[in-house]
């Protein structure tokens, strides 16, 4: 894999997991598995994807495995947030999984549907750009025209974040639709 300009994503993630509020949240996990028994994706994958294993790996310094091997593949998370709701220790699984996915994206391991959606936002200011057929439908329904936003503002702001690098880098990677495991 070619080296890209984002800092070592695994090392950054490790720092975040050891030296931040999120790290404190991670360490109170006592492995009860309530998260995994409530997870709809764990149910469907026979536990191949399950929230507890991600928390365990994050807790034990296996950041590379999480973001480079995608094993387990955090992108399979449904983001239904039930795990966080039922966690007796109030572990912030939501933010931990976002951090894992962000680091995987920095590494270039990001499914195409994510980069294409974010790219639409960059190009049009909207995740779903207006199509002529919908413009016509809106008029038929008596709705105001779908407004166009100031793309320059959106792009200016996005350029202040690392997203451009992620989008450019991801273009060089193959589709990860099935992850790797």
């Amino acid at each position, binding site marked *: 894999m070619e080296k890209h300009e984002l800092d070592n994503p695994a090392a950054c993630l490790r720092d975040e997991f050891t030296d931040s509020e999120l790290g404190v949240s991670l360490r109170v996990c006592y492995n009860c598995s309530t998260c995994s028994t409530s997870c709809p994706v764990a149910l469907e994958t026979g536990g191949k994807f399950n929230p507890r294993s991600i928390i365990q790996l994050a807790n034990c310094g296996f950041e590379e495995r999480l973001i480079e091997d995608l094993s387990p593949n955090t992108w399979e998370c449904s983001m239904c*947030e039930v795990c966080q709701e039922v966690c007796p220790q109030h572990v912030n699984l939501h933010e931990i999984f976002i951090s894992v996915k962000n680091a995987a994206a920095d590494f270039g391991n990001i499914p195409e549907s994510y980069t294409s959606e974010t790219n639409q936002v960059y190009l049009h200011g909207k995740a779903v750009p207006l199509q002529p057929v919908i413009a016509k439908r809106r008029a038929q329904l008596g709705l105001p025209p779908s407004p166009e936003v100031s793309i320059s503002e959106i792009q200016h702001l996005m350029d202040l974040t690392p*997203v451009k690098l992620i989008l450019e880098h991801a273009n060089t990677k193959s589709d990860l639709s099935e992850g790797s495991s």
Partner: protein
Amino acid sequence: MESESNKSTEQTTQSLQFDIFVGCTIQNRIPFIEKSARFVFEKLGIKLYDNNEFGCCPDPVGVQSTNHETWLTLGARNLSLAEQDNRPIVSFCNGCSETLKAVRHELLENPEEKSIIQSRLKEIGREFNGTSEVNHFIEVLYEQVGIDPIKELVVKPLTGIKIAVHPGCHYSRPHELVNTDDGLEPIYPKKILEALGATVLEYQEELMCCGSAVARVNEDAANGMLKRKYSSIQEAGADIIAVICPSCFQQLEVGQRAMKKAYKMDVKIPVLYVTELMALAFGASISEIGLKFHQVKPIKTLKAFGFE
């Protein structure tokens, strides 16, 4: 009694005004939902203002998972626009309302992050202070309008229609961020539908996620989730599935075809937005709110219950 409660409707709703945050999916893919939303809010006398500068919320799944900082920055821009209007936001989408609430929450809790975002917004001449509150439309209806004023507007009750409610995940979770209803057993959408005269069913898999995020990377798992959901809804005997999120709406419509392909399973249950059902109960015609644009056609079912 009658006139007294009518008076209270006016008092409750006249003062309510919001910036309407339509969201990309409703605005540019399924705009008939926006039609029903505007119809209902107008009937209730709630003033909605359009701010044409709102961009993508951005998507709490797609954009936040790609880069949290980007999500935070663009979310703050939207909030700054509402602040400039000096109005709270009402969102008609679980995803948009989660994003806007969560961004506001995160920035108000973290002064350091807030100052970074403020300096970025300054570059485009905007400012975030966190003064505009964000509401999901269900919250506005249940908490700020209340059930009685909704009941008073019903001219065509949904009597006899058996409805399975799919509240969707981001409406009430993570609860500490969105702070509405109950995190695991939300009831507001049910109470609203009952006020319209509908029969709201209990079903086993109500909490089951629609799986739209899972479908991006693992189609089999997403189909399995939907199969559980639909089976449970069919078992309960629902005529209609009611939703409050455009992402769930699309997934639960498209998923019906996927069931045929994956499991040879027949599912044909119309999916309607709570605002569509409200509009019908408030007297809107089927054509007026564009119900013919649904993929799973609801017209036959609705006509069977006397709707034109």
